[in-house]
């Protein structure tokens, strides 16, 4: 059968098989998990925040190549960004980085890590404001 390998591009498989920043942070400033019940994909992220900047981030989870590679890519992108900058990351940014045509059925997989970031880190920003 003629399968278009481009969907599973080398770097996506590479991130899936050797995920970057995989694991947990000890005593993270924020930790958040999201679950995609349809496929059983799970992505969680631990953040260390210094002066409003993401000093460190780790992810954990299980699921398909798209969800896990997308999370791995996300952690690379996030390190060193301010929360304000991280807030600007859009759906399109994530899809562009993956660089493949994602079918509607797989969008949730691709965007799961973005959801973790949004719910997790935005929540943190709100909390910090309250703390001030």
């Amino acid at each position, binding site marked *: *059968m*003629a*399968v*278009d*390998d481009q*969907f*599973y591009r080398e770097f996506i*498989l590479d991130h899936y*098989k050797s995920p970057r920043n995989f694991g947990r942070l000890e005593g993270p400033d924020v930790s958040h998990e999201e679950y995609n*019940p*349809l*496929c*059983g*994909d*799970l992505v969680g992220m631990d953040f260390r925040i210094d002066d409003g900047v993401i000093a460190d981030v780790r992810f954990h989870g*299980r*699921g*398909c*190549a*798209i969800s896990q590679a997308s999370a791995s890519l996300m952690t690379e992108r996030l390190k060193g960004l301010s929360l304000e900058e991280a807030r600007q990351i859009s759906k399109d940014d994530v899809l562009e980085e993956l660089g493949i045509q994602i*079918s509607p059925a*797989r969008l949730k*997989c691709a965007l799961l890590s973005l959801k973790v970031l949004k719910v997790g880190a935005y929540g943190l920003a709100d909390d910090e404001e309250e703390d001030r």
Partner: protein
Amino acid sequence: MSTSISSSTAGALDVEAVRRDFEFLASGVAYLDSANTSQRPRQVIEAMEAYYRECNANIHRGAYRASELATERYEGARDKLRRFVNAASRREIIYTRGTTEGINLVAYSWGRQNVREGDLIVTTVAEHHSNIVPWQILAQERGARVEYVDIDDRGELRRDQFDALMERRPKLVAFAQVSSNLGTINPYHELTAAAHAAGAIVLIDGAQGAPHLGIDVQETGCDFYAFSSHKMCGPTGVGVLYGRRELLEAMPPFQSGGDMIRTVRLSGTEYAPLPEKFEAGTQAIAEVIGMGAAVDYLQEIGLGAIHAHEQELTEYAFEALTEIQGLRIFGPGPSRRAGLVAFDLAGVHPHDLATILDRGDVAIRAGHNCAMPLMERLGVPAVARASFYLYTRREEIDRLVAGLQEAKRIFA
């Protein structure tokens, strides 16, 4: 284990002739997701279209020709469905939106009337969510408990556990005729008899059984049998709940409104007799007629021939799949199951498998497949599932296997 396949119809099935009835298949897709929803032959589509073209009117109320014709076709389908399950009376055939609504009807109507605090409801860990959640809700509302029969390592129900639960005199026992993910054909005759001996009411989820094995409700002796049209070559949005007449007679309506009443006064309402008591509002008339045509279609080919064809495909698939290293099949061997195979492949998530297969135009199901408790029991987040029906070719299983090899290569 016995099934209700009539041996008189067990002639060989001409797959290529069958496939000509299913226009969708001409696209070239290897459609291996019939356990999710089947394809529909032109005979079914034509029967629905004929209703819209020839006698599009509401049933049971118009005193004019088109309405009479529509009623005739709608009620004619009920006779076909009565024969299909061998119910004693046509009044025992209640049209629903599908298996899920049928089970909910029983949970709400029979359940609220009969289940009391401290009562026990028994179902199994291998059920579809639609045969778990309605019982959980009912139990919560009534202060009853739900207990689940586990499976053994081969994916068959643990009979010892089932029998132990029967000793606790459950009020209701609900299980699938065929497991939607394991493919296991449960010994539904024996389970029904054991549950009855314990004084329980028995509901069989026939969603995966009706399309492939059929049922004889009188021989089986079950009290309720729910199934869907769309898994057996009929349209979506319609199905049947069979219920034993004396139970249905004693049950309150599930939904209320038009067509389910005899007289309505502001001081109170008298309900219509069966089956209308449970068919409130304008029904899915075209779909019911389509479901009747689907039954005709399946019976003309013969469920025996269909089952034999599926058995052959399942054995073929088993042989081919077990040769793939790292592939694990869930559930019993081919002789103990219906035409579906759930599996996973080491190192490749089922969704990635489905995507890679889709790019070779092979359609399978992947995910928890509406059975999260079973996934947890199997210790997997998800599975891939290929399912077969009367129009499935061997060559399509070859394409499945080739796609799986391709997935292995990509993810190696």
